[in-house]
């Protein structure tokens, strides 16, 4: 039986905006197993960003429980959350979020720096990660010397370098043209086939169709959560 990585039970998230209470999430339960390929969909205001932040251990739920690999995330403090993010979660952002003055290699090294890995080890692993996204000839390039697609590959390499339990991508193709976006989605498919667990947050139907499972949110509730019968794959 596959291992359950994410187990969310009846969580809700309430924000206070001025005097008003905003229910961003109401009683959401989701569980995600190892090597799943999940698309998290929903229009803006549906609560998908909030859910993503909670899944990424950047935020904690107001009520309910979140077990990550069996650890109760609700009970963790700032530094423990940072450690989970560092070791277990690989983030990919819409705007890449690379350090502009650091080379591709240095950017990829960064999470390893924070987990206290020795320098020569870091370099080996960063190079391997860069190779796995097909950018071994761009190691010393700075972000402004790379194309958008290449930057996103560097960001994906950075997410991979710690061998995390999940890769959490927030609109990873949002800033790319269709062709480059497809290349990136192909890369995700590759990673999935190699055994990685991938969660992609998107509002684009086409992107979501690449995933094996689609969870749709609306008004803070899970609307549908089903296997994608029409999965689009690359050869």
């Amino acid at each position, binding site marked *: 039986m596959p291992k359950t990585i994410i187990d969310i039970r009846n969580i809700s998230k309430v924000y206070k905006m001025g005097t008003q209470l905003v229910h961003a999430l109401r009683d959401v339960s989701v569980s995600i197993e190892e090597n799943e390929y999940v698309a998290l969909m929903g229009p803006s205001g549906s609560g998908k960003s909030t859910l993503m*932040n909670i899944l*990424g251990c*950047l*935020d904690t739920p107001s009520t309910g429980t979140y077990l990550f690999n069996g650890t109760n995330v609700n009970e963790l403090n*700032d*530094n423990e959350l*940072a*450690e989970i*993010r*560092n*070791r277990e979660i690989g*983030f990919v*952002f819409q705007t890449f*979020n690379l*350090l502009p*003055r650091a080379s591709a290699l240095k950017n990829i090294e*960064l*999470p390893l*720096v*924070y*987990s*206290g890995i020795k320098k020569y080890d870091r370099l080996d692993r960063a190079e391997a990660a860069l190779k796995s996204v097909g950018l071994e000839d761009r190691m010393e390039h700075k972000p402004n010397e790379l194309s958008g697609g290449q930057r996103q590959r560097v960001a994906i390499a*950075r997410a991979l370098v710690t061998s995390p339990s999940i890769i959490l991508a927030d609109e990873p193709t949002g800033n790319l043209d269709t062709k480059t976006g497809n290349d990136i989605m192909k890369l995700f498919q590759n990673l999935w086939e190699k055994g990685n667990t991938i969660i992609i947050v998107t509002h684009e139907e086409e992107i979501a169709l690449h995933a094996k499972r689609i969870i749709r949110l609306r008004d803070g509730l899970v609307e549908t959560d089903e296997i994608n019968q029409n999965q689009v794959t690359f050869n």
Partner: protein
Amino acid sequence: MNISESIRMAIASIFTHKLRSFLTLLSVAIGVFAIMGSGSLVSSIDETVETEMANLGENSFKVTRMPSVQTGRGSWRKYNKREKIDYKQYSQLKKNIGEMAYVSVESSQGSMTVKYLEFQTDPDVNLQGTNEVYFNINDRDVPLGRAITEADVEFDRNVAVIGNDIRNKIFKGINPIGKEIKIGNQRFEVIGLLDEKGAILGQSQDNQVIIPISKFNKYYSNWWESLDIKVKAFNKESFVYVLDETIGALRTLRGDKPWEDNSFEIETNESITEQFSGLTGYLSYFGLLAGFFALAAAGVGITNIMLVAIKERTREIGLRKALGARRFWITMQFLVETMTITLIGGLIGIIMGYLMSTILGLALGLTVTIPINWIIISLTVTTFLGLISGLYPAYKAAGLDPIEALRYE
């Protein structure tokens, strides 16, 4: 994450914001410059006073109407009431202690012009009236010609020993011995050339002419001017006795009442050094004070600039936190960055301060030293400055919410 990484990052960010970094560095540099400059200047002065000002030599002391360094308020009025030391007092003193010590008498006028034929010096020559033991007591040689003798003083001869500066100015390439020079209206025969000494505290020791005190008193001295007396005991054993005798004799000669203080000053090497350290103490105190105020202002500026920098780099901080940076690492990063800026500023200030004190020191003829202790003080102060002014911005950066920070535009 290690320190060298933070330092490299800090230097990179310094170069990204050149103008801002320059202004920050400048503010720190100015403060350190004040501390370092005054500190090392004071060290040089102290060093010089110890090695050169203390030129009285062993077993010697000086008798003057007023102390050579005056710092206290209102002291001038007290000293000014004192009667001058005149030639009669000198002669009597010499009679009393002449068998145990050399006694020289000295009086001088600055701003004299010396002429030889159509050549003349600038009006800046120091004319020194004295007696035959001057050369011994002040440790000056006469390598060419001869020195002033007792007879020259006694018979009031028109003879002069000139310094090297004078020779260079008006006797270019000719032997000055036997030539006749004119100082004011008086003519003198050059009988000797003084050895070269260079400058002490900016004053050339070679730009002078020495003539018999008898001549000097007659033509170049004003009636109110006091003489200086220098005494050198023949040996160490008699020094204290000579000192006591001198004080006793002068008190009697000058009519000091038993309940009154001495109406003159006795200065030894130690007492001159002491007086100077009082003066340099003030100087270093004010330098330090000015430096600390400048650095306090710089500290506020640095805190402000780091807060702006953190605002600008909110997304970067958010990213670092998302990638797993603990609070500690974010705090460290910005602290190290602030400290790197202040330390670079400090180093610039140290170099500037050192250069300034060296240039000033050389111009003043001081013994220039490398003031290690002031370098250490400056570095310590700038390190703490970076720590203190960087603490709040770093703490704020570490406390940023990663979600908010990542969303920040």
